[in-house]
């Protein structure tokens, strides 16, 4: 409320009587709101419900009643507010302003309430998901898991961690090289129809489900009817490389194309050879974008499961640089395969791996933000 509004409200003396309907609706809304909050705040049941899906039926109903209360409040309160507040405002000014139909204002309030609920439905599951995994994993966490050998479905995660690192490194080397070359070629050298054709190649590739790539990887590389390499490092690296190529290529191409033409023209005007310009100026300003692309590729390599199941396999042995014939363990495997085994040790291993993956994702997001912030500061 502005100063003038307040002054007006004072001088007019706010002579009004609250309409009965508005009061009734407001009271219903407030009761629903309070009940909803009370049910939701019933501290003993909520954590159990959110983490474990609570086995006791009553607890869940508390939460549902709470949500129902909030929904009723959200639907009813705009009515009470509009009817009551509009009367108050009109009573405060003896003049006659054209009234805006209450329906329009209520629709607008519902619109914003719906948007808030939508945002809650985005933030809520994200928090719930992270919190749920943390709540189950942290109590059992032991640092020794990182250095302990895997024994079947128990033990530690040493082999899986090493395997994931090795696979990711391979993907960055093979996939990264191909993608950066592709992006460079598309942005700097190719033109016309060739460019369109080559670009649609990686664009279509990005739309192919990773399980299909995994299956073909298995048929061509792993299976004895194909190359017969068996489960191992190389098939895993190749399949993941194909999966990440579109992402790095896109990032490389876009960031190269975004380098201002004036840089190049400036260098041309100075008589600097184009290759030098490309290397020292263009590539340097495109670097943050390319690094971000590589970061996304790292996140994908670490987080993928389906295409690795039939290319990397799973193993108790510490991975070596042997490219074929020796299965490699990876970090997402225990989460997928051990979480519902009836063995306590397997479950703990699943959650430990989940925790490591989660921490890794958070790290990637932070590093990504830092790169963006850094490149912005340098661009200015």
């Amino acid at each position, binding site marked *: 409320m*502005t100063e*003038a509004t307040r002054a007006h409200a004072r001088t007019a003396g706010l002579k009004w009587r609250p309409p009965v309907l508005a009061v009734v609706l407001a009271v219903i809304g407030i009761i629903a709101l309070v009940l909803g909050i009370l049910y939701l705040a019933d501290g003993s049941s909520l954590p159990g419900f959110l983490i474990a899906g609570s086995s006791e039926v009553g607890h869940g109903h508390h939460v549902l009643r709470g949500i129902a209360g909030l929904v009723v409040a959200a639907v009813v309160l705009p009515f009470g507010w509009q009817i009551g507040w509009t009367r108050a405002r009109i009573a405060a*000014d003896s003049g006659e*302003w054209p009234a805006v139909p209450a329906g329009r204002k209520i629709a607008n309030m519902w619109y914003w309430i719906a948007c808030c609920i939508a945002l809650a439905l985005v933030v809520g599951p994200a928090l719930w998901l992270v919190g749920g995994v943390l709540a189950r994993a942290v109590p059992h966490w032991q640092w020794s898991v990182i250095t302990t050998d895997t024994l079947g479905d128990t033990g530690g995660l040493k082999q899986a961690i090493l395997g994931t690192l090795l696979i990711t490194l391979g993907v960055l080397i093979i996939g990264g090289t191909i993608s950066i070359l592709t992006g460079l070629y598309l942005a700097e050298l190719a033109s016309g129809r060739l460019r369109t054709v080559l670009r649609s190649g990686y664009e279509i590739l990005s739309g192919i489900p990773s399980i299909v790539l995994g299956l073909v990887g298995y048929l061509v590389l792993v299976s004895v009817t194909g190359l017969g390499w068996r489960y191992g490092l190389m098939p895993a690296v190749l399949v993941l490389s194909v999966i990440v190529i579109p992402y790095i290529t896109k990032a490389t191409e876009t960031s190269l194309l975004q380098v201002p033409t004036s840089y190049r023209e400036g260098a041309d005007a100075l008589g600097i050879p184009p290759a030098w310009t490309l290397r020292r100026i263009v590539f340097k300003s495109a670097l943050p974008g390319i690094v971000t692309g590589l970061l996304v590729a790292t996140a994908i390599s670490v987080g993928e499961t389906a295409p690795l199941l039939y290319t990397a396999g799973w193993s108790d042995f510490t991975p070596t640089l042997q490219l074929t014939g020796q299965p490699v363990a990876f970090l997402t495997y225990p989460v997928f395969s051990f979480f519902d085994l009836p063995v306590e040790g397997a479950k703990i291993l699943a959650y430990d791996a989940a925790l490591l993956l989660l921490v890794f994702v958070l790290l990637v997001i932070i590093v990504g933000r830092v790169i963006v912030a850094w490149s912005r500061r340098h661009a200015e």
Partner: protein
Amino acid sequence: MPSAAELSATPALRAVDLTLSFGSRAVLSGITADIQNGAVTAVIGPTGSGKTTLLRTFNRMNDKVTGYRHTGDVLLDGRSIWSPAVELMALRRRVGMLFQRANPFPMSIMDNVAAGVRAHKLAKGGEIREIARERLVEVGLWDAVSSRLKDSPFRLSGGQQQLLCLARALAISPEVLLLDEPTSALDPMATESIEKLIRTLVPKITVIIVTHNMAQARRVADRTIFLHQQQLVERGPTQQVFESPAREETARYVSGRFG
């Protein structure tokens, strides 16, 4: 039915000691001015003098700008536009606006003209089409668009788009129409047709036009307000302001020596 003399006696809009700032930046200070009912008032002044801000205050378009603060008051027909009884949607129905550049909505030409009528639920079905047709005729666009009312407005020329926006603003029968440099992006021909139209709107509608084009102010305005360095320097009949200004700054500005 009040006589013409009475009408012009009550100002349509009145700014009373209006001071306005965004954050620590003062934009208007101590503006007091009457906007004559049923006349065209031009607001002129150098860039940064606050003329657009003043215009946008009349329909409270500044309210949502971060750091916005004001003291003083603006009275529409004698009542504060910041009174608690005022609802923004209602205020803007009474005070319409046309912008620097045409801003048609992403809908058909017909729907553009009808948008305000539909939003405020002023008419239904056939009536809406009739209102739209009348307004398009009024702005002289009917012959050009009558055969393609369902088309996108973005294929029209810049001048036609601005006329369409004017028809859209007129369709909800505002009492006051705010024009924020409405022809600054248009060619001379389109500018001329819009200027002619503005003269036909009075005295039914009170028009306030912000312009940096002094020839335009002289052509269309009955009265002129001159702002300089966030303050109101001079106001009066257009002829007087331009030909025998009372203040030195006004004389220098209207003769083109600064700004």
